[in-house]
């Protein structure tokens, strides 16, 4: 079979591979050709691994030996903060430009066990701090649907590589919406799994109480396949929840909660509101009960997050000092070496958050900021958990607007407010799925987000597939 573009779903790729219409090596070669053709304009990939064809050949051999898995032979990309042994992982930062991972993350171990072909590492905002993929030390990634616009972040490379057809799916990481927001901007699906469901072992840490690896794919079905592959207890992640401790809710969705007051917040575009309202109407016509729910503390989510995350970042990035690994700039003494290395190695947003983290954790400010933020976070969690006694899922837009032009948002607070709809899931540890629905006034995609109770991913997939079916 001669193909001029990649199959767009894991299922269609697997059908072709199983039927013998194409081999994994041929599929990988097609992937590499797509990258050669398109990526000079998009800049999704920071590195295409040199062993891609070897991986594909190995997948073909495993298939011939009788191994079966939905991901066998399927080409995927991984975000640049996911460790793959023997390969560079730079978190899109200069300070790690020479860092070669000495071990593989649990994500990569599971993908390799499944026989997936990992094409390479894709671009991101430096250390996952950003919502646009403009903060990479290696240059921005562009939205494949409009090269003048951002793909979203921080997993912008993941979303762009999938949307452009350069790979079938990708694994990103999500701390405040970093999988879901770029998925929405690029017209694909993205999942933030329940915190504690998928292992963070081998992810370059940003916010340890919020991070999860998350799939980016063209369909809800594909997100489900990837989640099922990554999901599971790992004792190398101290926050990983054993299966015996997981209270898994029933997968039925009958009542959809909508926090209508949030839709009228400043910054939410009229188009986002109207497209969302059209979906709600169609869900009601399909037999779902839609209930208005009160989530008043959600307006505090962004301030809470931007106290907690700099605090955790200042801790997690303190190890990036150029001593044991990474780039070192020699100074006049040890302290000066630390400061020169970090000053030269970190970009402006990373520096901003490290300084802010030092501030909110310092004596005299810690109680007012960090302690108060963790307490307000608990209020937010309680309100969200309580909301799930009134509804089965919570539905809202993924973003306040469609993809914006590169360089058009320079105020850090304006960038932070992009997370308003996505960060509640991270603060509460609840799973949330973004599905493309509707378009903005320029024709670029918008997304809607379905959030469920903890370990309630099956509810997200169930309603997500319905929403896919309701798209015009």
């Amino acid at each position, binding site marked *: 079979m001669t193909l001029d573009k990649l199959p767009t779903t894991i299922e269609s790729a697997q059908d072709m591979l199983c039927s013998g219409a194409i081999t994994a090596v041929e599929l990988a070669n097609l992937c590499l050709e797509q990258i050669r053709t398109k990526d000079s304009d998009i800049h999704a990939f920071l590195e295409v691994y040199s062993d891609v064809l070897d991986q594909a050949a190995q997948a073909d051999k495993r298939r011939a030996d009788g191994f079966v898995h939905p991901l066998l032979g399927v080409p995927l990309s991984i975000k640049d903060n996911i460790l793959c042994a023997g390969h560079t992982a730079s978190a899109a930062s200069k300070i790690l430009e020479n860092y070669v991972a000495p071990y593989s993350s649990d994500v990569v171990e599971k993908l390799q066990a499944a026989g997936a072909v990992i094409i390479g590492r894709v671009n991101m905002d430096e250390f996952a701090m950003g919502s646009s993929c403009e903060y990479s030390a290696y240059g921005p990634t562009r939205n494949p649907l409009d090269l003048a616009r951002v793909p979203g972040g921080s997993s912008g490379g993941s979303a762009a590589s999938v949307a452009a057809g350069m790979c079938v799916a990708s694994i990103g990481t999500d701390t405040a919406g970093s999988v879901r927001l770029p998925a929405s901007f690029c017209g694909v699906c993205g999942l933030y799994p329940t915190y*504690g469901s998928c292992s*963070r072992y081998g992810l370059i*840490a940003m916010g*340890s*109480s919020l991070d999860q690896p998350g799939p980016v794919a063209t369909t809800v079905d594909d997100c489900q396949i990837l989640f099922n592959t990554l999901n599971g207890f790992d004792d*190398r*992640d*101290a*926050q990983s*929840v*054993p299966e015996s*401790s*997981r*209270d898994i809710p029933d997968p039925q969705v009958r009542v959809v909660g909508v926090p209508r007051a949030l839709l009228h917040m400043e910054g939410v575009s009229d188009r986002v509101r109207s497209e969302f309202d059209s979906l709600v109407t169609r869900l009601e016509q399909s037999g779902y009960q839609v209930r208005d729910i009160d989530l008043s*503390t959600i307006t*505090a989510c*962004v*301030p*809470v997050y*931007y*106290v907690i995350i700099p605090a955790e970042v*200042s*801790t997690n990035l303190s190890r990036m*000092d150029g001593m044991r690994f990474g780039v070192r700039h020699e100074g006049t003494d040890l*302290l000066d070496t*630390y*400061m*020169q290395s*970090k*000053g*030269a190695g*970190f970009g402006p947003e990373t*520096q*901003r958050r*490290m*300084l*802010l*983290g*030092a*501030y*909110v954790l*310092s004596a005299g400010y810690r109680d007012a*900021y*960090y*302690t*108060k*933020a*963790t*307490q*307000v976070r*608990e*209020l937010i969690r*309680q309100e969200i958990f309580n909301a799930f006694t009134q509804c089965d899922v919570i539905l809202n837009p993924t973003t306040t607007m469609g993809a914006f032009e590169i360089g058009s948002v320079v*105020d*850090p*607070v304006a960038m*932070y407010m992009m997370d308003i709809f996505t960060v509640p899931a991270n603060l509460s*540890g609840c799973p949330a799925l973004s599905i493309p629905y509707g378009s903005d006034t320029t024709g670029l995609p918008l997304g809607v987000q379905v959030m469920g109770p*903890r*370990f309630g991913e099956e509810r997200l997939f169930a309603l997500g597939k319905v929403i896919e079916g309701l798209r015009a």
Partner: protein
Amino acid sequence: MIDETLLQKLSLLARVAVDPADVQQRLQDFQSILGCIGQINAVELPSDFAIVPIVYNHARADVSRPASADTVAGIINNFPSNVLGQLRVQQVLKK
């Protein structure tokens, strides 16, 4: 308020050298961000709210303060059992 003196102290604390050319922009950004995060002060906590923050440090959760019996009860009551794995509860109880 953040001024240059405080910014210099934070720079030392975080061990991040701030380019002198960037100082004014840093201060401006900080003021803007503090205006955003300061909104948490407006959130009132219930009078019976007793939660001790758990500090996460590189995939390890440690109770940030010595835990009294009341605090332990507060932690267990305010965190779902499926967030606190068995190991964490044991750590809390040992304190």
